């Protein structure tokens, strides 16, 4: 699993490639704690390269959202593959996360 960081229009964009599962969740959580500790106020997590997520990965996402909300900061997800959208829907994540179809859409939300 790899995480690419980009700064676009003052927004931190994390492009994840690979799986978000029990083997990779620690690295993912470390990256989350990294941007939380720096008080980054606008973050996009881009799932374009993510081919798999399990409950461990979902747990880290919820943790990230909770911490961002506590600080009044914004987190947007984008580019989740069709076959994984159902997991976000049934977990009730579609209700609490802003999920955009692509990076441009996510950047527009945060502009």
């Amino acid at each position: 699993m790899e995480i690419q960081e980009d700064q676009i229009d003052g927004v931190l964009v994390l492009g994840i490639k690979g799986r978000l599962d029990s083997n990779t969740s620690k690295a993912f959580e470390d990256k989350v704690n990294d941007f939380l500790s720096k008080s980054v106020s606008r973050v996009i997590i881009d799932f374009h390269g993510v081919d798999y997520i399990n409950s461990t990965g979902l747990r880290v996402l919820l943790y990230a959202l909770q911490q961002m909300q506590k600080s009044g900061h914004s987190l947007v997800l984008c580019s989740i593959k069709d076959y994984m959208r159902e997991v976000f829907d049934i977990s009730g994540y579609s209700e609490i996360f802003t999920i955009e179809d692509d990076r441009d859409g996510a950047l527009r939300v945060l502009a």
Partner: protein
Amino acid sequence: MQPSETLRYRVSGDQNAVGVVLDSIDEVMRRRGLPPKTAYQVRLVLDEILTNIIEYGFVDIPFADVDLSLRFDGTELRVRVMDRAKPFDPTACRHAVTSGKALDRPIGGLGLFLVRNFVDELHYRREADSNVLTFRKTLIES
């Protein structure tokens, strides 16, 4: 229609072993032409079940390999997971929180909820010193 096949695995007690087994099953599903959504759901269900056993089942008892058998048969997948971990019934689980504000939701609890959602039947029984979990999932084979 692909011929039926049965796969058997023994899973040893670490997350890497689980990953290796899941990768092998992914390859079988790819060969059988299962669509990405079905393959994802099968991997997810097995991942959640096996991870749960390994993380919680052997906390204070010696680890014993988990036996996994899968049968791909026409439009169905039948799976049996046997382990000698502590008694644990995944069908009798606490409610996952899937609604309400983000800050009101507990972290965790989704794994077995996802399992129940992506299988068509799930059965548990305790046999002597083993947990036996079986499930059936309807597949759509191309």
